[in-house]
């Protein structure tokens, strides 16, 4: 296999039969190229899917009050449920071992002014834990902290785009902004992977928000983060317990569907992951299909190549080529072509994916990629099948009596 003469003879034959060489090489390169591209797109689709659903923390349970639809324990139906600060402390005290942190959220839309610039933004009264629930990333300064909550400070952490709008890219840190007529000092700037909307938020201590609203103690919703060690089953159990606990406390019938809403991100995540799994399956399926098409392509080419060379093989045999050397020659050529072309297709595919990058984001394809292992395995598969596809007709050709092969015009 590794003798120099044989390589020379092979290169010579390939060079002298450019059309044939190009054709079979092209088939293989194309097969791998399309495979890499499709597989990469599939992965890109999965990426964007995950980005949609996973920009928030996945270990949270969200509680939101509603309006009862059933009378219960002497209370009439259509009663509006209201969460208060004591709900926070009660949950914390009753489930201390399950909870990582707990935070309320009070959402308001306020006109925010700074000098001549003004705009409407969502202002959220939160506790420090909210930063983890939303996966908020601080780029400058700090987030709202416990001291802020305790002292009801007029400090605000603003989104990147809020800063851009109001401060036209200058640092906002330490400057005052007017939120709904009240002056707040900017103590931090954040970004959020969840998209532009998330970066047009302003966070302030929830206690401050309550003080501004006639010193009430109401909260819109409660976000409870459980310890990740609980796992999926533990999260479901906790969700159920929390639900029962809150219904009991607020006198909501256990089967009242609208008195309280509980959303478990962990359960959503499970569904998301299942869907992603289906996507992965489709991607794999498409990939295998492409690969199969490639294999069939090479097989056709190889049958054609051997057929075309029947006479030449007959001549070679008449002047002393053994069947083994005939089969070896064809295999050597086919493996060589598929290897080189496969590698080229691989590089082209990976290169194209890199080039595309995030430019197809509007088609929900983010960062398309293919793992090296998958790509190499696909190439090797194609080479292997190219060899098998070459071997079968080559062996048949080698078995033909030279006299029959020579008669072939």
């Amino acid at each position, binding site marked *: 296999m590794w003798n120099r*003469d044989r390589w020379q003879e092979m290169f*010579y034959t390939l060079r002298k039969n450019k059309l044939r060489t190009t054709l079979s090489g092209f088939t293989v390169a194309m097969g791998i190229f399309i495979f890499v591209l499709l597989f990469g797109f599939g992965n890109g689709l999965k990426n964007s899917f995950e980005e949609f659903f996973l920009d928030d923390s996945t270990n949270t349970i969200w509680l939101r009050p509603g309006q009862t639809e059933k009378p219960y324990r002497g209370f009439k139906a259509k009663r509006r449920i209201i969460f208060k600060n004591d709900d926070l402390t009660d949950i914390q005290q009753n489930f201390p071992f399950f909870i990582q942190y707990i935070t309320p959220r009070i959402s308001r839309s306020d006109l925010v002014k700074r000098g001549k610039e003004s705009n409407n933004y969502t202002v959220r009264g939160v506790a420090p834990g909210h930063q983890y629930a939303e996966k908020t990333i601080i780029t400058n300064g700090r987030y709202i902290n416990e001291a802020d909550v305790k002292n009801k400070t007029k400090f605000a952490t603003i989104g990147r785009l809020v800063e851009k709008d109001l401060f036209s890219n200058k640092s906002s840190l330490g400057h005052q902004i007017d939120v709904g007529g009240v002056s707040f000092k900017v103590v931090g700037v954040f970004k959020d992977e969840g998209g532009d909307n998330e970066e047009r938020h302003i966070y302030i201590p929830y206690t401050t928000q309550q003080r501004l609203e006639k010193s009430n103690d109401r909260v819109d919703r409660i976000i409870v983060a459980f310890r990740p060690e609980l796992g999926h089953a533990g999260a479901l159990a906790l969700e159920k317990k929390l639900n029962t606990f809150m219904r009991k406390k607020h006198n909501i019938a256990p089967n009242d569907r609208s008195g309280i809403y509980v959303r478990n991100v962990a359960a959503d995540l499970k569904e998301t992951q299942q869907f992603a799994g289906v996507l992965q399956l489709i991607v794999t399926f498409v990939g295998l299909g492409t690969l199969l098409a490639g294999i069939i392509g090479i097989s056709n080419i190889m049958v054609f190549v051997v057929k075309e060379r029947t*006479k030449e093989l007959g001549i*070679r*045999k008449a*002047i*002393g080529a053994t*069947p083994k*050397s005939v089969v070896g020659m064809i295999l050597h050529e086919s493996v060589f072509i598929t290897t080189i072309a496969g590698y080229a297709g691989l590089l082209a595919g990976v290169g194209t994916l890199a080039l595309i990058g995030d430019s197809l984001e509007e088609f929900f394809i983010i960062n398309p990629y293919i793992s090296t292992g998958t790509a190499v395995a696909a190439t090797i598969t194609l080479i292997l099948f190219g060899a098998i596809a070459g071997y079968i007709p080559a062996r048949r050709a080698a078995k033909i009596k030279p006299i029959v092969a020579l008669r072939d015009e």
Partner: protein
Amino acid sequence: MIEIKKLHKSYAMGQNTLHVLKGINFDVAEGEMVAIMGSSGSGKSTLLNILGMLDVADSGSYILDKNPIKNLDETKAAIYRNKFLGFVFQSFNLISYKTALENVMLPLYYQKVARKERQERAQKFLEQVGLGPWAAHHPNELSGGQKQRVAIARALVSEPKVLLADEPTGALDSKTSYELMDVLQNINDKGITLLIVTHEEDIANMCKRIVHLRDGVIVEDKKVKQVRASSYVE
């Protein structure tokens, strides 16, 4: 050099079998130049193919240079062909994408001769058939006679004991044919045994012995006085 006894060969043609060779007994000594003649269908090409191990007989014995040729698998046949025999075909059978020199080099490649030596020996034989300056030409740039001379050089380059030629002049005009026969006679003069299948009387008369085949049997086997082709060639 060649001894064959009771050689039989038949081909299946659909339902019927065509009995082509019906018990051929035939000896060729070293250095002979034998013409095998007969009308088409007489079995002359089949005989040559069996002698050349391109085809196998149904029964009978064949001894080539003291080697009994039987139960050959393709690999062994290939080695024998490469070692003992050279072929010249009516349709030349050169590999079109190789130059004249490379075509001649090919048998040596299968003998695993080093490239440089292959080149030198091939060049030598090309010169012997008068095609030294044409070494770098491809077959499609050569005339019929030149192609056949390349084929002869290719058959000779492995220095075979026996050269088998199947209608070597069949595709050539008579002038070119005589030139080719001159080449073949010169080869024979060097001691190489030659078997030539032909149906042309004048070509046959340029050999030293004529064997007539009719319907699968030898009907005549005579020595003739060789006509030298050089007398026709300027």
